[in-house]
């Protein structure tokens, strides 16, 4: 995925755009990674600890989406 050593683009507009793009990429990776963890039987508490956030935060952010995807997991 990383094809070259990370460098800061000379143009601030490009550098700032890269920040936004990396954040969106991180969000995508997080969504996919949480789904995979749930499929593998991880609890919300374990996922939260791995992400370094509270269980409430990870549950609020992902529970409904994961349930809608048919990857069932209850409140824990």
């Amino acid at each position, binding site marked *: 995925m990383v094809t070259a050593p990370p460098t800061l683009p000379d143009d601030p507009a490009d550098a700032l*755009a*890269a920040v936004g*793009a990396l954040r969106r*990429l991180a969000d*995508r*990776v997080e*969504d996919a990674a949480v789904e995979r963890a749930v499929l593998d039987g991880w609890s919300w508490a374990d996922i939260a600890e791995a992400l370094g956030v509270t269980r409430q935060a990870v549950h609020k952010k992902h529970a*409904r*989406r994961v349930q809608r995807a048919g990857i069932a997991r209850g409140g824990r």
Partner: protein
Amino acid sequence: MAFERFTRDARAAVVAAREEARTTGRHTVESEHLLLALAARPEFGLDRDQLADALALEEQRSLAAVGVDAAELEPRAAGRSRHEPRFATSSKLALQRAVATAAKRGDRRLTAGHVLLGVLAAEHGRVPRALRIAEVDVDRLRREI
């Protein structure tokens, strides 16, 4: 200006923007989603799919600039975004600018055209970068609204 002043078309654009965010799995509605929603309407002469491609290319180039090849990585979550993606700073700002534009012109109703002017007012960020990639003549577009 309250939401009641929004015309039916302006409201529809706001609702469609949320749908644009939702269908691409995003947790937030950004100004780019307003742009895509407005471009899907016939009256502005914009091409929604062309702009969606330009936004994708903008993202790919921005990641490439810091050494990340996103084409290789496709971690697509199966689940869509949670029920209601929330309006984030960029889309709120676009709507505030739309309201300001309508007020400045003395227009009583806020139209889809005002929303587009609000979106186009951004000098920086995803929207102007994608519009440049798509070679949209923004000045001309602004004059025609």
